């Protein structure tokens, strides 16, 4: 149902790994479910993580992503289902015997140890020789750009520095899988961008599988090989960042990843869809005749034209300058569309809009239909609030 050319969204670089060889599965979750106090946190999820993969679990708070991570780490035991590591069931293996390490959300550095001793912690447990410890700690410090910080008190480091110590501490044992629980959540934007690049580089260089939990969709798109979108304890979609962005499976994914106009439509026939009172050509097929569907159109894929020359006609209700483009809210048949355009249009003016066939993506109806995708109550402020109220599940 989706054969169309890839539309590169602006400002996001994707890592295209479609031609890479398939690596061996290292972590597998099979039909894993978990409830706390009768509340379902994970609803029978299945997930395969491969060697050398950078996988991101993405979703809003309470979606079960952190619980999934904690199940892999061994801090949470699933109610049903199996956790496999290297094809061995590890449900009952305690965390201290698992070959995974974790970078915790708020670092959880040992306050009684300095930078060097925090990083050396795992090696000391294994009775590694003093020279070997020194060599490897120095290597780690070099990797996270903290040379010369050996004797520092971890309580006096900045957030970014503590973060680096936490990464070095988790990596020194050469785990097969590194789990990262919103590791950049507490850092400011600039630092977060730098650390994203650094983490990605570290992952490439070491070849360690990263399982990364975040609620930040941009972070997920820019760093991952595979994105797993989660909501309400279920996996909504697994795919490459390009897949997730261009071919969202349902209204939830379309709304959560980037901006989307999600409109009610009817699939008339293969390659023909009707919405907003107009018939469009599209690239999707395989639906029943006259099947109701959700239609996704990304704001950057809508062209603004003169009133008479468009496929649809609408009234501009607001225009906001965003730097790279204008964000235009247009009312078309009582549905508020968001359009991103580099051209300015007058508010209250009637405009025409034109949509190319490859800009239309058709999705099956789901439980999330009609919940998202209308910009009538849209405000930047709310968006920001919903981004920052993230804590922990």
């Amino acid at each position: 149902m989706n054969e169309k050319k890839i539309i590169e969204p602006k400002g996001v670089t994707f890592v295209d790994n479609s031609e890479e060889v398939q690596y061996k599965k290292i972590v597998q979750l099979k039909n894993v479910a978990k409830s706390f106090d009768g509340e379902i946190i994970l609803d029978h999820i299945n997930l395969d993580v491969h060697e050398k993969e950078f996988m991101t679990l993405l979703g809003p708070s309470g979606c079960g992503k952190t619980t999934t991570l904690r199940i892999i780490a061994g801090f949470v035991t699933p109610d049903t289902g199996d956790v496999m590591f290297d094809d061995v069931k590890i449900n009952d293996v305690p965390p201290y015997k698992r070959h995974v390490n974790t970078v915790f959300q708020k670092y959880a550095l040992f306050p009684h140890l300095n930078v060097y001793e925090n990083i050396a912690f795992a090696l000391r447990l294994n009775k590694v020789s003093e020279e070997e410890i020194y060599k490897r700690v120095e290597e780690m410090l070099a990797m996270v750009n903290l040379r010369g910080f050996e004797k520092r008190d971890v309580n006096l480091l900045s957030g970014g520095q503590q973060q680096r110590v936490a990464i070095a501490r988790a990596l020194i044992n050469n785990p097969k899988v590194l789990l990262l629980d919103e590791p950049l959540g507490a850092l400011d934007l600039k630092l977060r961008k730098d650390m994203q690049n650094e983490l990605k580089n570290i992952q490439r260089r070491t070849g360690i599988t990263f399982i990364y939990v975040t609620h930040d969709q941009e972070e997920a798109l820019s760093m991952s090989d595979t994105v797993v979108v989660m909501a309400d304890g279920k996996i909504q979609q697994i795919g490459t960042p390009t897949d997730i962005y261009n071919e969202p499976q349902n209204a939830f994914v379309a709304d959560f990843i980037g901006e989307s106009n999600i409109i009610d439509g009817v699939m008339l026939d293969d390659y023909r869809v009707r919405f907003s009172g107009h018939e469009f050509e599209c690239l999707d097929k395989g639906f029943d005749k006259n099947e109701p569907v959700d239609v996704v159109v990304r704001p950057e894929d809508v062209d603004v034209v003169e009133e008479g020359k468009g496929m649809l006609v609408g009234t501009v209700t607001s225009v906001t300058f965003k730097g790279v483009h204008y964000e235009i809210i247009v009312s078309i048949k009582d549905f508020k569309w968001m359009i991103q355009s580099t051209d300015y249009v007058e508010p209250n003016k009637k405009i025409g809009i034109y949509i190319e066939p490859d800009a239309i993506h058709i999705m099956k109806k789901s439980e999330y239909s009609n919940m998202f995708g209308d910009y009538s109550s849209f405000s930047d402020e709310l968006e920001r609030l919903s981004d920052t109220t993230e804590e922990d599940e």
Partner: protein
Amino acid sequence: MNKKSILRQAAAYPHIVWAILFIIAPLIFVAYYAFTDKEGNFTFSNIASLAEASYLEVFLRSVCFAFLATVICLVIAYPVAYFISRTSPKAQRILIMLITLPQWLNFLIRTYSWMALLEDNGIINSFLGLIGIEPIHMINTPFAVILGMVYNFLPYMIIPLHSVMSKIDPRLYEAAADLGCNPIKTMFKVVFPLSRSGIISGITMVFVPSISTFYISQKLGGGNFDLIGDTIERQFQTAYNYNLGAAMSFVLMILIIISMAIMNKYSDEDGGVIV
């Protein structure tokens, strides 16, 4: 100076008066009696007479008993406090209440109860007799005295330990487990160093009452094991030698101050030590 700070100063006066009347003044009296003879003349003879072998023995015994009681309390209390600190906040409140519950009973009654338990034909030995075990002589032994100390002062070890441990970030336990620590290693590598200030407070709060107790040794030791507390009590109650009694109190105080200074040295920057 504004009104507020005057008020604030005034608030301190009752305590200052209290401190002078009941802390500073008695200390001066103790020092006065310790360094004077019956006629009130200055002398070192009271202090010097404590160098006698019989007194040295009492001091040494007191230190040994108090030391043993403190070590036993620490060994028992540490895992208990660790266990309690890992339970839910509600369970913690209940468990700590249960730990302090015996303290609601009068100290004398608790000690008398131990006499009843430990006597040669007491409750424990009667029970042992029932299951065919020869009675064990327990009362009036060092074992009974130290047991009494441990029993009475154990909560003073558990509470400061628990209060420090319950403040340790639970994520540190996860971090330790994640890096390869089993629960025992976590206790030694993470909990122990982070609970040092609680250990110091606990030791202080058990050692000081243990070294100066007199009642426990009289009732459970049958008067066979004179401790400093007993000797001091006798000087005031029976011998009416206030000067010698004061001299002993004075030396005991110095002993306690020295042990505390040693402990503080090891607690270094941790702070928060109750002394």
